[in-house]
């Protein structure tokens, strides 16, 4: 732009102003596709950005705060169809991203606990909202009723397609039903949310294993499209001598057995191998099966365990030990029964390719650890016996969830299911029917009080050791009550409110900086725009003749609204920004 143009533009901005020029950068509700808006949403709402399903977290937490739990539940459900379930067992990438957890900001908001509380606390008369499309007369087969399958099935039938789910096992839910222990996820809740999906007219056929009870080609012919969402079911093997002795389980089978109500024989001393949720679930289940000395053994350091702090603490509390930097090299048996594991020490090394840090075994560092049983929870890979996971979808067969991406977590699987549902719909209809945009709305109040920032995290209520052991299925966490949820909801920074100072009205009086609670308002020279539309680090300055603007850093702002209150020029605007999906 030429200098003069800009100059005249500046003039224009003030000509079209009525006596007091409004700083509101948005005059009414608008839907933006500008990369900078997406950028800002991504950067200044880190929780939502971290969520694979892009759940509108500030939105539903606000609803919980207003005690509109039903509304909160629906906001969740619009992004993931199993809010209650995820409220119990989500891996919570959002919480590690939460800005309340940043240095000096205290601890992350209990996002997942709040998710749970909106399903716990919603009124009995709560009704589910579905925006149903007209029937399309298209038929889709979904193979697998795990999170990915369910998500795909749900969205497809919303979009008007006829959906049938084929489940190989006796009950639906996949990993949720067979992988996760009941003391973390009550089954009635799981079934309730599954039924909420099936009621859309989705047909569920259980005990129909693909390739065993029914062939893929048959489905290809009968249906306009087929979704393969069989997840990851073939366990990784230890690939060491003695692996096939007795009392050596793989994590998945072990959990399956436990969840089917069997009591696999573990003995007194149990060695669990693996660093993920499954490993911890196995270990904690083993404790409940009467084992007294349970250890989780990992190749890398504790840092690299793929579980969150709560799980770590609960495991610790239940007396489970973690041994790091070792890997099994051999399993020693007496006859056909395992009596010890030979471990080998490892050390960390760097690689140039991801994951950059790996553990490599140290020669001649073997040593023996006696044990009564071994559980190998090394994760699983897709079972490609029937169909290979690299599908292009051209012949109407699509891969979804873990089956496509490899073993991940539940929320990713659900997001994956949704994604493929969109793809399938486009394939069937021949056009995009939905589009993600940023909804911008003027927001008068700031919705927060400064005092909220000093509320400590509301701890989840749990049951004590005796109760845990008395009945293996007793749920450990018992959820928030109404007031606890309300209190915890207060802590959310509502990062979806975007604060902006209009430098064209600002008189640089720095009243806002004076009241700023944190390093959130700065005198800046320039602001770089990254390719993804986010604003880079503001270039600050203390030289009066370089201060181009006083700017609010939305990635530091805690929405206390004090700047708003003191600004003499009313040049600070608050805009509510939400990612939403609309029809194209």
């Amino acid at each position, binding site marked *: 732009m030429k200098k003069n143009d800009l100059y005249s533009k500046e003039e224009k901005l003030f000509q079209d102003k009525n006596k007091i020029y409004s700083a509101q950068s948005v005059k009414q509700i608008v839907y933006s596709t500008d990369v900078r808006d997406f950028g800002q949403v991504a950067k200044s709402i880190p929780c939502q950005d971290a969520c694979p399903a892009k759940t509108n977290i500030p939105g539903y937490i606000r609803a919980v705060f207003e005690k509109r739990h039903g509304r909160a539940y629906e906001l969740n459900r619009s992004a993931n169809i199993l809010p209650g379930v995820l409220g119990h067992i989500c891996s919570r990438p959002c919480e590690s991203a939460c800005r309340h957890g940043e240095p000096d900001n205290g601890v992350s908001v209990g996002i997942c606990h709040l998710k749970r509380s909106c399903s716990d606390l919603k009124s009995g008369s709560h009704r589910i909202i579905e925006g149903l499309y007209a029937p399309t007369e298209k038929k889709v087969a979904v193979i697998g009723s795990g999170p990915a399958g369910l998500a795909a099935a749900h969205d497809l039938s919303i979009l008007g397609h006829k959906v049938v789910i084929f489940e190989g096992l006796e009950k639906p839910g996949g990993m949720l039903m067979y992988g996760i222990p009941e003391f973390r996820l009550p089954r009635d809740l799981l079934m309730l949310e599954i039924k909420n999906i099936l009621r859309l007219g989705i047909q569920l056929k259980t005990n129909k294993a693909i390739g065993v009870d029914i062939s893929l080609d048959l489905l290809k012919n009968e249906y306009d499209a087929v979704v393969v969402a069989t997840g990851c079911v073939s366990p990784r093997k230890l690939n060491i001598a003695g692996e096939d002795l007795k009392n050596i389980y793989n994590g998945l089978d072990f959990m399956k057995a436990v969840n089917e109500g069997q009591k696999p024989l573990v003995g007194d001393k149990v060695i669990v191998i693996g660093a993920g949720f499954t490993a911890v679930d196995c270990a904690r289940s083993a404790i409940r099966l009467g084992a007294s000395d349970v250890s989780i053994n990992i190749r890398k350091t504790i*840092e690299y365990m793929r579980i969150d702090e709560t799980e770590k603490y609960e495991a610790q509390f239940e007396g489970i030990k973690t*041994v790091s930097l070792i890997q099994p090299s051999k399993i020693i048996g007496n006859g056909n029964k395992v009596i010890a594991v030979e471990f080998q020490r490892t050390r960390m090394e760097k690689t140039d390719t991801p994951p950059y840090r790996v553990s490599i075994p140290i020669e001649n560092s073997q040593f023996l650890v006696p044990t009564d049983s071994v559980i190998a929870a090394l994760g699983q890979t897709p079972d490609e016996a029937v169909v290979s996971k690299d599908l292009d979808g051209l012949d109407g067969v699509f891969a979804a969830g873990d089956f496509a991406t490899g073993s991940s977590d539940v929320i990713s699987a659900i997001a994956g299911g949704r994604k493929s549902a969109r793809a399938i719909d486009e394939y069937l209809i021949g056009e995009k029917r939905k589009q993600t945009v940023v909804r911008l709305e003027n927001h008068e109040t700031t919705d927060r009080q400064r005092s909220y920032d000093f509320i400590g995290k509301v701890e989840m209520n749990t049951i004590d050791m005796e109760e845990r052991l008395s009945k293996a299925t007793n749920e450990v966490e018992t959820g928030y009550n109404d007031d606890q949820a309300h209190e915890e909801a207060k802590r959310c920074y509502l990062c979806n409110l975007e604060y902006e100072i209009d430098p064209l009205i600002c008189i640089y009086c720095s009243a806002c900086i004076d009241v700023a609670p944190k390093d959130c308002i700065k005198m800046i020279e320039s602001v770089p725009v990254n390719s993804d539309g986010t604003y880079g680090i503001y270039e600050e300055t203390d030289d009066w003749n370089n201060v181009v603007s006083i700017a609010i850093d939305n990635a530091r702002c805690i929405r206390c609204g004090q700047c708003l209150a003191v600004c003499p020029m009313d040049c600070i605007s608050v805009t509510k920004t939400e990612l939403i999906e609309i029809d194209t």
Partner: protein
Amino acid sequence: MPFNDHYVIIGNGPAGNHAARTLRKKDKDAKITIISDERVPYYYKPKLTNFIADEIAKEDLMVNFLNSYKAKDIRIRLGQEVERIDSESKTLFLQHMEKINYSKLIIASGSRARVLPAMSRYANHLKFVTSYTDVMAVKEEIRKAKDFFIFGGDLVGFKFLRLLNSMGKTVTILIYPNAFWPYNLTDNMLAQITESLSKFKVDVIVKDDISIIDDKNGLYRVKTQKGIEKNVDMVFSFNGLIPNIDFAKGSGVDIDHGILVNEYLKTNVDSIYACGSCAQIYNPSIKSYTTSIGWPNAVVQGEVAAFNLLGDHKIIESVGRKYFDLEGVKIKTIWWEDIDDEV
């Protein structure tokens, strides 16, 4: 202005100080800074119990070093906590929101009292004897108090127990087999210890665990799972030490229980070294990562870290004692092996 190296040392104990000294010896014009979260200069931790007993004065506790910081032109920052490390930009973020740039970093932050998970919820009722500040906080109280309860019982723990006994206090101790972690006491060891303690006026509890501690206006009611109940004035915890390294998390430095370093005390990040009881050192001879405690070890490691930081390739060797005498039970621990407990 000519660029000078800035060597920063986190920790003001034996390791840190000897590292700093060595660096200064080798490099006359580098900028050297020691950062310590303690508010007092370099002192002898091992003598803290004697200090409580008033066997020695505050002056005797101090390693006479104060002026030598100035003499050696070593900048010392006391009472300042490192919050995190950004190894990319070589920046330290201090708790009071100051940023410090370093060219080379030595972590010698030592260790702090370990609190067992089962007791973590009562942490604010527990007293410790791990730092000068702790001691100053309890010294007077101990003098006044009569009844004591001790959980665990590591080296310092038993030393403290004997002290209390000599002061004529009544003491109850609940011994955790893993208190002397990472070593796990066997049953007959426990028996021996109980035996040797019998010569003192002390109730010994074994094979039991804490159930509850509650605070009734300064008086504590301690209850064990087997139902033993005591009303005491002070509750102490002696369950060994754990490396003091929370600030290093997420810095890109490999951390397990302690900070992982190779036999040259170098971490996986160039320009960052670690030594003393906060480090988990690779020992080629036993092909394992091990942690060492004890003053002499710290001193040697501090010096070695400094030498290697300046480009040398010294391999660390322990100067640990052949064994520790735990109430007559001899425990061989030149090196700690199989760190098998959760930090």
